[in-house]
């Protein structure tokens, strides 16, 4: 066996390897990009769900924007208050007192409450159904029931119940806005976690038409407006809604007389 050729191969390959290793080591020194070490720390403190609620491509981009001072701490509605405080201390930013917001589904038109208008055998997504007269339910404003909101939730905080209505887990919900954007009927809204009284209806038809399609539709009878002295209830476009800045009873509905039981208390008292 010719050992010299073997030695040649080992030496030449080893030599080449050594040269490149040196080059790489030099390049690492010369071309090093200084990254602010704060970015990594901030990213660690952010939720890491990449939900997109900040409007940036993910938590990493959000961290860069925060460190560069382009945005303030209110940008992330998802992170815990304590984490935000820590980021604030790290970057010398003022902590913004953000009230935690959660999604509220403004519809009670589940399978038993709302009339069924037809059999639907098209694409089983809410968006797909909007092309074909809006699916099976007769209400043109309420929940369609195919769960586009469930599909987009990055926090597993929204689920369909037996009635075919989405239910928000108020503890898990971070207010990232994804479900709000996904709903083609705009049935879901974000509200501070301290708000509990809602008119769960989105039907803007006249009372007669609304009542015809759904048992629990708001018929804009204004009984709630008259019953509540604080002025927290208003009726606009045939639909009552609660102005939580004015309504003075946090966990109490103004009247039991709502004929369609559209006014409902959502969530537990004293949630934070």
């Amino acid at each position: 066996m010719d050992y010299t050729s073997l030695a040649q191969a080992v030496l030449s390959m080893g030599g080449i390897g050594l040269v490149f290793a040196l080059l790489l080591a030099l390049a690492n020194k010369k071309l090093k990009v200084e990254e602010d070490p704060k970015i990594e720390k901030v990213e660690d403190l952010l939720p890491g769900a990449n939900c997109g609620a900040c409007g940036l491509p993910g938590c990493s981009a959000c961290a860069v924007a925060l460190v560069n001072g382009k945005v303030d701490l209110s940008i992330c509605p998802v992170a815990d208050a304590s984490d935000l405080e820590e980021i604030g201390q790290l970057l010398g930013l003022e902590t913004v007192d953000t009230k935690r917001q959660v999604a509220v589904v403004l519809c009670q038109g589940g399978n038993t409450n709302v009339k069924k208008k037809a059999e639907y055998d098209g694409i089983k997504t809410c968006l797909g159904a909007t092309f074909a007269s809006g699916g099976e339910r007769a209400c043109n404003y309420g929940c369609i029931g195919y769960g586009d909101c469930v599909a987009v939730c990055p926090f597993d905080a929204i689920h369909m119940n037996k009635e075919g209505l989405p239910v928000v887990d108020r503890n898990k919900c971070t207010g990232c806005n994804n479900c709000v954007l996904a709903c083609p009927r705009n049935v879901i809204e974000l509200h501070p976690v301290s708000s509990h009284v809602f008119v769960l209806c989105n039907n803007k038809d006249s009372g007669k038409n609304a009542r015809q399609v759904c048992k629990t539709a708001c018929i804009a009878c204004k009984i709630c407006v008259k019953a509540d002295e604080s002025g927290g209830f208003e009726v606009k476009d045939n639909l009552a809604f609660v102005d939580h800045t004015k309504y003075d009873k946090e966990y109490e509905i103004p009247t039991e007389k709502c004929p369609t039981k559209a006014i409902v208390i959502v969530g537990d008292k004293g949630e934070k």
Partner: protein
Amino acid sequence: MKLSTFKKGVHPREYKQFAENKNIEKMGLPKEVFVPLIQHIGTPCTPIVKKRDVVKAGQLIGEGKGFISSKIHAPISGVVKTIDNFAHPNGSSGQMIHIVGNGEADWNADPAENVDWEKLSKEELIKKVNDAGIVGMGGAAFPSHVKLQPPKDKKIDVFIINGCECEPYLTADHRMMVEQAEEIILGVRIIMKALDVTKALIGIENNKPDAIEIMTKVSQSYNGITILPLKVKYPQGAEKMLIKAAVNREVPTGALPMDVGAVVNNVGTAIGVAEAVVKNKPLIERVVTVTGDGVKEPKNVLARIGTPFRELIEFCGGLKEDAAKILMGGPMMGVTQYTMDVPVIKATSGILCLSRKSAPVLEEYACLQCGTCVNACPMNLLPTRISRAVDYSKFEMAEQLGAMNCIECGCCVFACPSNIPIVQKIRIGKLKINELKKS
């Protein structure tokens, strides 16, 4: 002779036997009509009548702002009961003027008033078309007066009349060509004058030999009008496919027919134009094919705009017991209805009632990557790729793949062996792409 056509496309069964030999029947006046404020492409109309106003048939009741819009007229004499939201046959709901008939004088053209159209100038002709609220009656309802006024830099040299009626089941255009050939040719001559062209082609699919014969006979005495028999293939009646078949020009991506020097109109539109110009008659009625195996006596009906589907179907003997699905339009591009209370609009070419047997619910399987849809797509798109991009919410990718060029003809779904609702997904994609562009 080899018949001209376009590349790709599909061959659905025709099902024209239901109503192709039935004369157009005039339906009695409906008791009430619902006239949608949006029946055309463009800005919606604003009503110029109020609740409780008394209107006369043919009276202007709504007009839209802007160039691309169309006027609407009262289809019957009566009282405006309300202006409110009602179910619209395009699958949503919309503002409509609800008129309850009071049995007073119906629209009646004074025969002495026949206008000598040859004395009218181009501008006067177009104004008359606009005043009568004429829109494309093939299904898209594009305002006709807009088509008749191409921008100055676009030279139009050929006018094409669409008598293909490539949708299965529908026979309204066919019957119009057989029964109203004179009026169609009159309309064609008026449009030729308005457009200032000397050449007109009337494309008719070869499965309507009687229409081809009659149209040829009537058109012989006029210069420049040629009847062009075309191969039977879907979507032969789509504007871009028809231009390719008739004059062998391809409309580029994102361009309009006028960019290649052509204007296309439906035969129904030609009749509308003729009546508007010669008899000053606004577009208040149209021929609707009520057909399918779910209706007792399929017919071609001349019905007022705004007539609820229910009344038309009752006029045709009512629904059979096994009727399961009602569509406005043909089976390929028609819109499924959930109620029979929707009104006939200017674009309603047919009401198709199908039994469950003809409209089965198909189970969807995974894409086989077989490329059948690619072979079927007359716009040379990759439907499978676009629908997959939409599945994964990659709307930018869908746009790059040309989703916006989709004409929504449905060939891909027809061809797909896995029953994937491809065109429905592409429509979702188009909606999302438009939303992204706006924001």
